[in-house]
């Protein structure tokens, strides 16, 4: 078990070093990256089985006491989300290998190793048991994302990269100031100890800390009104990079919020967070409706969907938090697939702009199907995973009562999501094929790899729908232990 936790964090870092050393040998370089990402993903799947069977497992790094050293905690919540995240990165890297010979590819010498570092940061963020290591994990993710976003160095990327970098640097600074506040109030940064000590603080100090971290994690997660950096920067990166960012990065913010705000019992912030959630859902989807580029539409949907996850969390009930966790599991693969399909559209049409594409369904029916499944899932149409996840969140809200405004907002946002998905469908897959020169698409072998990777990912989203019952049970169990942190505290301090 200790080995599994270490592999998930260290293997991608080793792979990053190897692939940098092998950068002039493309085959070995890609092999190193795939091996690192693959072994981390495999370890996380075994970890889920082990944690579901034996319960939470803790590693005290270097053998220090939890008050002094770093602890890594694999509880059910972390073990549920980690395999989804790591598998997505692995599949996206396969897609990237197919995309290498097109003009939209990222520079493989840099993007491979950086993706590995980002993976390691994601594992660390999910598994860490203290607030400062969470900050370090965020920095690991962000630093690699800054370079991934801007490494091609063209005008658009530098422009949007600046907004992204400055916004996230500011959020990181606020995070660090928050750590200082927490430390001076409680004398610890260990989450288990915080779960004991923060609820005993004065209401003012406690809520101040909660609101502060709401802003910090909210900026990372792109909730209203802190979202403006996201639709600006995501569409300019190469598709594979955007797929990873959209699938994972904002979700790490939501994950941290679910963990921190539940463990420290910030229930009083619930009404405020519900209003933020409702606004995020509606504003995000309205932004999507105004756009005319596939990647920009999808970027605004990232924001809108974050609202649903925040909504489940802000109910502060077991059912609500379980709904949020299930929504995370549903949303990460669906969003990544949609961006991968955006990459396929670019490959076949020469652009992801709605005005410059049309009639793709006739020429590439497979791509059309691979868009339709996750798009319907995103809009929450049964029998896809989005329906199950939305049902879980909305029924939890109705059960708690007094949330009619948020429920209405969720339903309206769902309808508008369907509207903007059908806009993509009408413009790109139906309609007249556009005139004018198309750049030559990827060679057949590269295209096969890209299609296979996307198909695997689509199959993954269907699996989430198929096993929704089991996943909801596991999510409920994870939510129960988050709502009642006694088991978590006991696992960290036996």
């Amino acid at each position, binding site marked *: 078990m200790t080995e599994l936790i270490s592999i998930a964090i260290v293997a991608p870092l080793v792979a990053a070093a190897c692939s940098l050393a092998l950068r002039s040998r493309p085959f070995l370089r890609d092999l190193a990256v795939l091996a690192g990402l693959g072994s981390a993903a495999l370890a996380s799947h075994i970890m889920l089985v082990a944690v579901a069977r034996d319960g939470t497992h803790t590693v005290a790094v270097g053998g220090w006491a939890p008050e*002094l050293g770093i602890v890594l905690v694999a509880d059910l919540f972390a073990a549920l989300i980690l395999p989804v995240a790591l598998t997505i990165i692995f599949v996206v890297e396969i897609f990237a290998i197919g995309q290498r010979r097109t003009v939209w590819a990222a520079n493989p010498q840099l993007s491979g190793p950086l993706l590995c570092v980002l993976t390691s940061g994601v594992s660390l963020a999910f598994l860490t048991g203290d607030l*400062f290591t969470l900050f*370090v994990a965020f*920095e690991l993710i962000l*630093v690699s994302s*800054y*370079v991934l976003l*801007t490494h091609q*160095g063209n*005008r658009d990327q*530098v*422009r*949007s*990269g*600046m*907004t992204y*970098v*400055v916004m996230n*640097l*500011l959020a*990181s*600074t606020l995070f*660090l*100031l928050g*750590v*200082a*506040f927490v*430390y*001076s109030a409680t004398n610890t*940064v260990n989450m288990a100890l915080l779960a004991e000590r923060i609820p005993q603080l004065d209401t003012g100090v406690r809520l101040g800390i909660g609101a502060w971290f709401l802003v910090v994690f909210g900026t990372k997660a792109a909730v209203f009104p802190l979202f403006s950096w996201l639709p*600006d920067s995501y*569409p300019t990166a190469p598709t594979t990079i955007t797929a990873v960012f959209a699938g994972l990065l904002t979700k790490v913010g939501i994950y941290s919020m679910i963990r921190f705000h539940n463990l420290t019992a910030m229930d009083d912030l619930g009404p405020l967070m519900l209003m933020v959630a409702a606004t995020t859902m509606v504003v995000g989807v309205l932004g999507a409706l*105004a*756009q*005319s*580029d596939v990647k*920009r539409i999808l970027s605004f949907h990232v924001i809108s969907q974050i609202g649903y996850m925040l909504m489940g969390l802000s109910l502060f009930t077991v059912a609500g938090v379980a709904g949020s966790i299930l929504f995370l599991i549903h949303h990460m693969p669906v969003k990544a697939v949609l961006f991968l399909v955006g990459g396929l559209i670019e490959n076949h049409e020469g652009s992801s702009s709605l005005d410059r594409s049309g009639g793709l369904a006739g020429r590439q029916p497979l791509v059309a199907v691979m868009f339709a499944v996750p798009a319907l899932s995103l809009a929450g149409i049964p029998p896809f995973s989005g329906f199950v996840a939305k049902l879980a969140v909305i029924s939890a809200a109705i059960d708690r009562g007094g949330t009619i405004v948020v429920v209405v907002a969720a339903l309206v946002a769902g309808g508008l999501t369907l509207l903007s998905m059908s806009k993509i469908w009408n413009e790109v897959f139906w309609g007249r094929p556009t005139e004018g020169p198309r750049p030559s698409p990827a060679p057949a072998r590269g295209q096969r790899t890209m299609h296979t990777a996307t198909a695997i990912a689509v199959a993954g989203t269907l699996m989430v729908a198929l096993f929704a019952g089991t996943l909801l049970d596991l999510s409920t169990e994870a939510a129960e232990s988050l709502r009642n942190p006694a088991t978590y505290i006991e696992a960290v301090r036996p």
Partner: protein
Amino acid sequence: MNGALLIAVGGLTAVGLYLVTGRSLSRIVLGYSLLGHATVVALIAAGGPAGRPPIAGQAEPEAMANPLPQALTLTAIVISFGLTLFLLALARRQRTITGDDLVEDDLEDRRIAGPDSLPGEQEDQAAT
């Protein structure tokens, strides 16, 4: 809690935030460094009163300063140093591409907002 340190944190944060909200990247870099200093001072202030160096054998444990915030501070300093360099590299790249280091608006946003809704645009262009 040391009042002078708190005032220093407040002052550094205020000036840093003011600089970061500017359009020029060189100002943002300066603002970010000040914000970095503010967090470092805040972390040190959170560690409690000053004391002897926390090295085993050199002083009684009761007389030592709290070593944990110092460890956190070192990590924070390294990270903010690296990121300042990255920001400078970005500013230089922007200068080679556009000739200045100003953060630009999103072109797609402007296109969707339409020409009528941007009263400040002409003045902006006249100024640059």
